[in-house]
């Protein structure tokens, strides 16, 4: 589909900070995004993902630092839609405007050939509803129209904020394929999300932030290797077992009433403890390290992807529950920031 030639530019964020009043939404954030790969931009709600993307797109002014695309700030790009396509979470449409007219409007403002309108509508599967008013669209259809808007200028860089929101499972599978296809064409694809399961299957690289700060960035495969393994134990007496194990394994996560995960442990280490204290267990399995556990371990106590307000500066995040303690992650091969 990519019609314009040349290598896609990368994204560079350096020392970026943004304050909203007394709240530090983004704090000295630095990372880079390479062309030809899908980069997941992950963090709990309120971590500063959307703010970072909005600064990158010239919608929000940074308090300090820079965010550039191909070495230029977004506002300095002469024909931005030809270089950068964006889908933002709150991107909205006039309900009375037809889908096709929405795209035509963007095409006019962005100096894009009108023929692209029909092409992108077909790409996102909205060709048959092109003449319908957006007000009658489902959430998933709006998301597709947003993607069509992002693709309209055939840009080398795609910045997508929560693109999987509102898509059904087939839609998410379709989105994954589309993103892969776009990255394989050499485009730079930056995708923010809090839906970890969807992301894990899609992304090559990750940038993980929490409380506005970088927690980790690099290839996903390297990251998951470096987070220590975890053992999942199902037991009716989870509280007692947690107490028994905590002195040796401080990183214990309570997954459910009768289910705990002991990070950094092996079944061989836990088995003797169970036998010694005659604990009844229903399940004991080694958890393969996945994106979720990496994410949880990096985004801090009690911040496992559920609504978490940004912590004001100077407030140390205390343990929010009995279960989650972040183990340290080895820094080898990783861009990693010190904990707050």
């Amino acid at each position, binding site marked *: 589909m990519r019609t314009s030639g040349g290598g896609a530019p990368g994204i560079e964020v350096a020392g970026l900070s943004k304050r909203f009043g007394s709240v530090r939404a983004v704090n000295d954030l630095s990372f880079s995004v390479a062309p030809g790969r899908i980069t997941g931009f992950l963090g709990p709600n309120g971590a500063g993902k959307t703010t970072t993307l909005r600064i990158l797109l010239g*919608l929000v002014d940074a308090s300090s630092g820079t965010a550039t695309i191909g070495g230029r700030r977004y506002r300095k790009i002469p024909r931005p*839609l030809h270089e950068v396509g964006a889908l*933002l979470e709150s991107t*909205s449409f006039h309900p009375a405007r037809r889908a096709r007219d929405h795209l*035509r*409007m*963007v095409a*006019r403002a962005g100096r894009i050939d009108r023929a692209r309108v029909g092409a992108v509508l077909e790409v996102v599967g909205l060709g048959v509803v092109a003449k319908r008013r957006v007000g009658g669209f489902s959430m998933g259809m709006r998301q597709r129209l947003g993607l069509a808007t992002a693709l309209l200028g055939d840009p080398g860089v795609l910045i997508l904020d929560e693109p999987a929101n509102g898509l059904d499972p087939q839609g998410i599978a379709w989105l994954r394929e589309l993103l892969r296809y776009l990255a394989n064409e050499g485009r730079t694809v930056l995708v923010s999300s809090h839906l970890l399961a969807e992301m894990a299957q899609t992304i090559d690289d990750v940038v993980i932030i929490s409380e506005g700060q970088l927690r980790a960035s690099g290839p996903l495969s390297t990251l998951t290797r470096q987070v220590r393994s975890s053992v999942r134990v199902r037991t009716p007496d989870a509280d007692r077992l947690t107490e028994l194990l905590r002195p040796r394994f401080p990183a214990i996560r309570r997954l459910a009433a009768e289910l705990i995960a002991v990070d950094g442990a092996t079944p061989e280490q836990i088995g003797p403890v169970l036998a010694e204290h005659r604990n009844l267990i229903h399940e004991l399995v080694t958890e393969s390290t996945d994106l979720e556990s990496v994410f949880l371990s990096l985004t801090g106590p009690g911040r496992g992807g559920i609504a978490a307000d940004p912590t004001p500066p100077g407030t140390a995040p205390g343990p929010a529950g009995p279960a989650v303690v972040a183990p340290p992650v080895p820094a080898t091969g990783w861009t990693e920031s010190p904990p707050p």
Partner: protein
Amino acid sequence: MRLVRAELFKLRTTPGPWVVLGVTLLLTGLGVLRPFLFPTTPHHLQFLAPTSTFRLRELVGSGLTVGAEYMAAILGILCVTGEFRHKVITTTLLATPRRWRLVVAKSVASIVWSVYYCVASLAMVAALGIPLLVSQGGSTMALWHQVRPVVPGLFGSFALIALYGVGFGTLVKNQIAAVVAVLAISFIIEPIVIGVSPEVGRWLPAAAAAAVSGDILGKGIRAYLLSWWLGAIVLAAWGVVPVVVGYFTTFSRDVT
């Protein structure tokens, strides 16, 4: 120019400007018919007197007294506030990151639509007024001689009132609040001020517009009106100042 065309496209693909155009036609029509329906209205008695020579100024004025001109202000408000109401502003700014160009494009597009409204109004005046005039034995020749002195001022006041609406919209981003406020100011507050103190009132937008259009609105302060060019400057200032202030406030803020 490209941005102006994009803004014009935006306006014509939403129902708002068309609804306002309909209201403009309706108000103009009602205004022309009003002296016919209520012949006791003193200001318009001369229309229906078979002996009088009808003048376009009065004919147009009778059409616009009901406030058709202010529909241009509402159009200007829609052009700006529609972006914020439906959060289309994000998409707009991604295509046009340099915001001052967007503000200029919106102002120009609103003025272009004000021309449509003015043409529509005049067409309505002609369609209803001329037959009415002829039926009452009036002279259409006298009417044509009035075109040159009356019509340019009318277009001017429509255009400047549209700009006034754009300025209003950039300061009051809430669409409903902006429309209600501009109508309240134009139809309630300004007439009161003009009535109490014409020396002050003549500097307000409605009186400035009356100066530009040759008091066809019959505000009743003919003696106090500014000259047409001073009226144009004052009315333009009522539009440009809020647009500039709005650029540095509304349009320079972070879009979150």
